[in-house]
């Protein structure tokens, strides 16, 4: 999954450098969506959900 995030990001840079700006933006948006999905997957816990019970305010 992380490899896909970086692959789409790199593709966005290369396409932008090649002048294909609209496709580059699409790749960047794809990278953003994958990044957001992976972030939520990484921080989600089956026990706590997205809460952080070790923080006592």
């Amino acid at each position, binding site marked *: 999954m992380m*490899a896909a995030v970086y692959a789409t990001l790199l593709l966005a840079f290369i396409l932008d450098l090649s002048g294909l700006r609209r496709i580059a933006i699409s790749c960047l948006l794809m990278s953003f969506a994958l990044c957001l999905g992976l972030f939520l997957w990484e*921080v989600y816990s089956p026990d706590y959900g997205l809460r952080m019970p070790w923080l006592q305010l």
Partner: protein
Amino acid sequence: MSGTEFSATLDRLILFLMLAVLAAILTAAMVMQYAFGEIPCPLCLLQRVAMFGCCFGLIRQLRSNNSERGTGIALIFTVLLLVISVRQTLLDLFPRPGHDYVGSAVFGIHLPVWSVIISVALLLGFAIRLALFGGAHNTADAERHLPRTVVRALVIYLVVICAINFLSVVAQCGLDQCHTFGYRLFQ
């Protein structure tokens, strides 16, 4: 040089400096990884993605004549960087079983906290830039305010370090979940 041209040049210079600082930060992170053996955690890798996304927006803005779309892209990724780094700082605030790895500190501050500082500095930078220069300048050729070759060299450098990061992620994580135990490809 007229007042409008001067502010346009200063605007491009600020954007270029922001891009150069981000490139330096990403390079420093890679030096920490390869020279000091700090294998990045998944959230650290996602923070790098957010920084690269911010760089992409800055590059677009440097080329733009009459639009602030690049700034918008950069701001989206800056907010993403802030969200990820704050969450990671809160995760590592207290030692928890099975989560001993937090990495080393630079100038007494751990890397996720540096990320929070960087994202707040970026948000401030964009806010100050918009407050001072008020957005797009409608100049005929935005890129002429800075030496084209210097900007081009920095952009190519960023693409190269993005490619190195991609190869590094493939070596570390393969096509599976990322861990900080070592490089999956070399085990």
